[in-house]
């Protein structure tokens, strides 16, 4: 299947537009479409095609390795697809400028090169349409979210399908194609909505669970699981000028309302923060002293993500081009390009934020009796908040222990009429951080101190390999934000042993995974943004292809044009094989008027003349056959004028035949 002229060029320009690489795409398009204008070709063997295909494979491996290191999995898959049109350029150029105008199947499948020669391995395929599809998919992978994407895809597809339509169905084709476009448009909007709904329903098991934080809702595992699942994947890195003397809590979100087993944030709309001059800094508070600075490297797989920040963060720097929002509960969210990013957090002592509200004192009715009983035992009511906090902290430190295992799977084993938190406080006295944080918040509230449930990470692990602090998914943590002395303070009542307990779950391949993670982190640091480097990659590949083309051009160019301009005859061996008459033969064969092997052309025309639907066209063809015979078999051949007459005559005949059909 040959593609219509300019279709590949248009698809490439569309890809370049979407991938923000318009100039390289235009050069590639000119290179490939230029083959229609240029008359010279290379006589490439199957081995040459195999080598070219291997070159493309090598380029693809390089590009994939680069994007894996720079943006990490799984985004690397999409990022690699984005640059496929450039990666496949050598093979497409080889096809466009080869005598065969097609690629042997053995070049595409390595196993076919080593096996017994079969008809399949020698089979040649035209990669025009597959490359067209690759360009469209690569444009989609660029993810510009442009409203022009779909209309352009439909238009290009229409262009591609137009020559393949069934004859005599012009009106019906237009109706059906329009219908297909409408169906596609309606369903792609629905599909996107479906995914959003699906994600809302099953947030955490779609991987990235440690990376994603919903500022309005936090589902806990309280009362629902047996063994807590812990993941070892590094999710962020923290560079601190001074070593940390104690674990640093990186806050991501706080919640004020508990509806077992979920924490919710009500009335906490995110509002945009105005960037400071230069657009690289955002100030969260204006009244706090700046004490320390840390740099955080993390991944924003979806572009939008909640920032992990130390308590008391006053200012955020970096995140060029991002839009930053925050809410009254201390959540800071950045909207920017998907991929890796770094930002600096400058922080002081205590968190500012809004003063407590009624919701920060609310205790669920189901837990009230249990909490009242414990408060009565501890007797803190009426004391200053700081003392109450100390009592509660001591209570948990002395009476409770850390455990990632809960016997009460699905509530089983919990006495009837008792909640999981009640069971934790009165009976089991063992649980993971969500139990401790939730129970502490509720107990403080019951004792009259405003408190919130906070989630984020605990930074404790200094990587000897990298020299920075690394934070893994299993370092995700929850704690309490408690309000006293006019500010919100972090309170972590989970026994400090939790870190060591969870460390035991590190897999044996952890060091290898850490090494891979470090390499990709270093690559990302060295390469900057993936998009910019990808653009360079396209240019490098283009230059490489041009260099190879020049080498080939110098080495084994074969002209199929009438090189001896004005020369009287075409005398090379195998002359006439490019006669346009074969187009007529092919077209008629497609319609069922195939010429038998060895059947003379004139006999063939005589035979089909009896059933040919347009017999008036056959005499013209008979005259062209004479020229074709001379071009094909006469040792003297045709002069330039006659050759032109043959070519133009055949094309004109084909047009007439098409119009008559």
């Amino acid at each position, binding site marked *: 299947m040959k593609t219509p002229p300019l279709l590949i060029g248009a698809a490439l320009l569309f890809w370049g537009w979407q991938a923000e690489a318009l100039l390289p795409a235009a050069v590639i398009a000119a290179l490939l479409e230029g083959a229609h204008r240029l008359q010279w070709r290379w006589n490439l063997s199957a081995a040459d095609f195999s080598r070219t295909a291997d070159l493309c494979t090598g380029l693809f491996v390089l590009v994939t390795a680069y994007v894996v290191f720079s943006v990490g999995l799984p985004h690397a898959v999409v990022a690699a*697809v984005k640059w496929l049109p450039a990666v496949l350029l050598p093979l497409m150029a080889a096809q466009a400028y080869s005598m065969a105008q097609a690629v042997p199947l053995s070049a595409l499948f390595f196993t076919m090169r080593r096996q017994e020669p079969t008809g399949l391995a020698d089979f040649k395929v035209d990669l025009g349409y597959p490359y067209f599809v690759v360009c469209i*998919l690569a444009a*989609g992978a660029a993810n510009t979210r442009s409203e022009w994407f779909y209309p352009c895809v439909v238009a290009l*597809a229409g262009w591609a*399908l137009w020559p*393949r339509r069934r004859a005599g169905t012009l009106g019906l084709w237009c109706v059906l194609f329009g219908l297909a476009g409408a169906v*596609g448009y309606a369903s792609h909007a629905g599909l996107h909505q479906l995914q959003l709904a699906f994600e809302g329903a099953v947030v955490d098991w779609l991987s990235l669970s440690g990376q994603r934080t919903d500022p309005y809702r936090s589902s806990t595992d309280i009362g629902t699981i047996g063994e807590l699942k812990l993941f070892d994947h590094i999710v962020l890195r923290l560079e601190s000028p001074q070593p940390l003397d104690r674990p640093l809590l990186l806050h991501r979100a706080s919640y004020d309302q508990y509806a077992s087993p979920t924490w919710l944030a009500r009335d906490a709309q995110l509002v945009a923060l105005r960037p400071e001059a230069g657009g690289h800094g955002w100030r969260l508070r204006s009244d706090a002293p700046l004490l320390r600075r840390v740099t955080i490297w993390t991944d924003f797989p979806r572009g939008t993500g909640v920032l992990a920040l130390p308590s008391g963060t006053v200012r955020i720097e970096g995140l060029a081009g991002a839009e930053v929002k925050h809410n009254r509960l201390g959540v800071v969210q950045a909207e920017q390009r*998907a991929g890796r990013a770094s930002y600096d957090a400058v922080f002081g002592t205590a968190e500012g934020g809004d003063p407590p509200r009624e919701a920060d004192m609310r205790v669920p009715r189901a837990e009230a009796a249990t909490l009242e009983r414990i408060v009565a035992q501890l007797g803190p009511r009426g004391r200053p908040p700081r003392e109450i906090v100390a009592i509660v902290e001591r209570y948990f430190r002395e009476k409770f222990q850390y455990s990632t295992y809960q016997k009460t799977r699905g509530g089983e084993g919990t006495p009837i009429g008792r909640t999981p938190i009640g069971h934790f406080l009165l009976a089991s006295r063992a649980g993971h951080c969500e139990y401790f944080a939730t129970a502490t918040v509720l107990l403080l509230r019951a004792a009259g101190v405003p408190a919130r449930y906070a989630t984020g990470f605990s930074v404790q692990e200094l990587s000897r390999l990298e020299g920075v602090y690394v934070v893994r998914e299993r370092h995700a943590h929850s704690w309490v934000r408690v309000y006293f002395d006019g500010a919100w303070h972090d309170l972590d009542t989970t026994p400090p042993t939790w870190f060591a307990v969870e460390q035991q779950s590190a897999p044996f391949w952890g060091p290898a995974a850490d090494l891979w993670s470090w390499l990709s982190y270093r690559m990302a640091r060295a390469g900057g943004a993936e998009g910019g480097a990808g653009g360079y990659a396209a240019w490098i590949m283009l230059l490489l292809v041009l260099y190879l083309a020049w080498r080939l051009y110098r080495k084994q160019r074969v002209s199929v044009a009438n090189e001896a301009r004005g020369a009287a005859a075409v005398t090379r061996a195998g002359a006439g094989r490019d006669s346009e008459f074969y187009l007529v033969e092919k077209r008629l064969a497609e319609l069922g008027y195939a010429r038998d092997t060895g059947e003379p052309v004139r006999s063939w025309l005589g035979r089909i003349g009896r059933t040919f*639907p347009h017999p008036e066209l056959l005499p013209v063809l008979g005259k062209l056959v004479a020229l074709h015979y001379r071009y094909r078999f006469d040792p003297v051949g045709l002069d330039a004028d006659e050759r032109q007459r043959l070519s133009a005559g055949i094309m004109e005949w084909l047009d007439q035949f098409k119009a008559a059909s």
Partner: protein
Amino acid sequence: MKHFLYLNFRVVSAWQHWLMRRFTAAGRLALAALVASAVVGVDTNQTMAYQVFTFVVGLLAVAVCGSLLFKGRFEVRRLAPKLATVGEPCSYQVQVSNVGDRAFEGLSLLEDQADPRPSLSEFLAASDPVGERRNAFDRAVGYHRWARLVARRRRAAIPEQGVPHLASRSEVELRMGFTPEHRGSLRLTGITIARSDPLGLFRGLLAHRAPHTVTVLPRRYRLPAIGLPGRRMYQHGGVTLASSVGDSEEFMSLRDYRPGDPLKRIHWKNFARVGKPVVKEYQDEFFERHALVLDTYAGRGRDSVFEEAVSVAASLASTIDTQECLLDLLFVGNQAYCYTGGRGQLRTENLLEILAGVQLCSEHEFSLLRQSVLGRRVQLSSCILILLAWDGPRQELVQSLRALGLPLLVLVIAEPDRAPAGIPDWISVLEVGKIQQGLARL
């Protein structure tokens, strides 16, 4: 595991067959684009390829619906030959009549072939001649074995043929053709008329039952004139067995009936005259009788060697002039077979048809072939042995025949560059891929 793989291959093969018949080339590309866009666009937030996906879904859905509009009344008649030969193009005519009131454009004819998928036992017993060159995964999964078996059982791939404009109540005559790739029976079950939907992606099919079997004869090589040596031998049974081959029937005398004499030899007039059965006695029959012995013990992974041996046997069977002699074709399948060609017996085409169906023997020992050949030693003038190896049993057979003084032509078929060691000079070794050159030296 192998059972699972077999079922898997069966399902995939059926699906592939359906896909190739139902989808046009553009449709298959659309299907590939559908899969690729589903993979790339699985996350609608990360890429916009999901829009490509839904559009292609729309295209294919509309195309499938459009193909349902294909209705028509046709009559199809195939004028196909009964015999074809491996490697030689075979063409035949098909008459398509449109008996409806609508004219049709863009039709195609597809031959329906019998299901070529092998049985489980065939799949398990099959071997891959280039298995040692494949990687461990390919060897373990065995897809190449499956593909090879399917191709072998299919005999030939018959390309579809476009139908010219077919006016209402009119008939067109088309020429279809194929080149057989493997010997055996090529079973055609019917002819299907296909027409793509207006978008050119999916085809509507109308099947017509038209069973026909083409016997694909083995590939044959050109042979030089072979002068078979040997003298005429007494043939028990004489002309009743060999018709007019050898000396003409000549009455010699009468004698008393002996148990076992055929009734047709009783001289009824004398019987009536003397009151006891008397039979006519004829001069004994002497004529040349040659044996063409085909070794069917190839072992696993030597299919190509066996196929070449069958081709060489077919070449000899079709070249040897059997007007003045008999030619016994001996081989072992599920039992020892002997088919005799020559005047009054089987014709050359019959021998070739028999060779088209010869299979490797795995049930019996080589000694059965030896017994079969030596059992006929008294009648034979000469013997042509086509052997697949040069091991002890085969050497023993050759020595036994030489000890009888029987003129021998021994051909050993071998893989390229793997000629067996220790073969005497008078024995010809034919290498796969160079059979024609080897035969030219005979």
